[in-house]
């Protein structure tokens, strides 16, 4: 797991799917649920260090992250319940990476073709050498009016910078992973223990935001477990997970 040589700028990858495919390929894995669970940690590491604050892009990365965490959780705790829609998300992510792989391969072929300088050239049509007026009976002043209005509405639509659909979820990335880590650390270092269920409840509000924060917290805790700061205990097979600072165990 020492292959962390890629740099953490958003420009290196065209999006989360590109990053995932790169991680999978750099480990010479095939695209599967298992390989996705293997690269989850690296993906999260990348997100936590991402320097872009393009809200749309961050949202897209986090949406993929939530599916990855689900996959990771299932690989660690086989009994975990996955809803039908979550199951579909997992299948879709796998498919998306496979499709993306085809697009990327096609892109490489096209790049080679452009570089090979084998362009062909056509010839402008000669039809216009013959001057005759060729009417189209469908055109009336009403058609012109309609077309101009369609044009006007289209240009208006294109001027709206971020679609309203994403507006509701972009609030989330404004809380950085580091802030959440800090908050969790404070609780743990003051000697207390934390339960995953408490963490998600503590965020309150919108269910989607709650879910996202829970994921981010869980990632932060996993990171701390990995670094030996925190100890995690699950008392019963499908029970809640309790986190304690290592020095208190």
């Amino acid at each position, binding site marked *: 797991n020492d292959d962390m040589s890629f740099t953490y700028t958003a420009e290196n990858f065209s999006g989360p799917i590109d990053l995932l495919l790169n991680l999978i390929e750099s480990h010479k894995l095939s695209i599967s649920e298992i390989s996705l669970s293997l690269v989850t940690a690296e993906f999260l590491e990348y997100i936590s260090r991402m320097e872009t604050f393009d809200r749309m892009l961050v949202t897209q990365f986090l949406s993929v992250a939530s599916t990855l965490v689900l996959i990771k959780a299932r690989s660690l705790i086989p009994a975990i319940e996955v809803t039908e829609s979550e199951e579909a998300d997992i299948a879709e992510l796998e498919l998306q990476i496979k499709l993306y792989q085809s697009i990327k391969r096609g892109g490489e072929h096209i790049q080679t073709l452009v570089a090979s300088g084998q362009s062909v*050239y*056509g*010839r*402008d*049509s*000669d*039809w*216009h*050498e*013959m*001057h*005759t*007026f*060729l*009417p*189209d009976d*469908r*055109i*009336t*002043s*009403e*058609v*012109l*009016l309609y*077309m*101009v*209005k*369609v*044009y*006007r509405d289209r240009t208006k639509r*294109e001027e709206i910078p971020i679609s309203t659909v994403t507006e509701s979820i972009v609030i989330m990335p404004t809380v950085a992973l580091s802030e959440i880590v800090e908050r969790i650390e404070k609780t743990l270092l003051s000697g207390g223990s934390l339960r995953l269920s408490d963490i998600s409840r503590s965020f309150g509000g919108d269910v989607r935001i709650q879910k996202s924060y829970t994921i981010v917290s869980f990632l932060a805790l996993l990171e701390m477990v990995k670094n030996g700061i925190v100890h995690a205990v699950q008392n019963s097979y499908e029970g809640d997970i309790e986190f304690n600072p290592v020095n208190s165990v």
Partner: protein
Amino acid sequence: MTVFELEAIVFVAGSEGISLADLAEAFDIEDQEMESLVREMVDVISTSTRPYIPVVSKEVVRLVTKPEYSNLISKVKQTLDKSPLSKSQLELVSLLAYRGPSTKVDIDTLRGVNSVQPIKTLLLRGMIERAGESHGSTIYTLTQDFWEMIGVVDPSNLPEFAELHTTLVN
């Protein structure tokens, strides 16, 4: 440079053709050599089965179809021309109707796409025509035939003209 290489270039130059001077300069050869190469090309092509011949006029060389194909070509053109205008062609004539004569640059900017193709088609159908230049960009305008076709004598008689015209001009 071979005769066939020269033919390839003249082919691509289309009906506008290419001047002997441009050819000589691009390939860094003497004018005289260029002329003899063009003569050679005329010989080769004229004796082949190709449906066109090279014509040199005013120091410009171009390929034109042989006269025996003229009737056939007009006949085909007439069959093709019944086709309705495409959406991008319609958009272009609508913009010109409500905005007034516009340069190629203006048209491209307004539509957000390169409009070479619809312009070409509309020119050949006689719906638009060139009307000078502004800042090095060709100005296009709708033809008299076009206005007669839609039965509007003056653009300001178009429905909702004032409002839409203002939107497009600014």
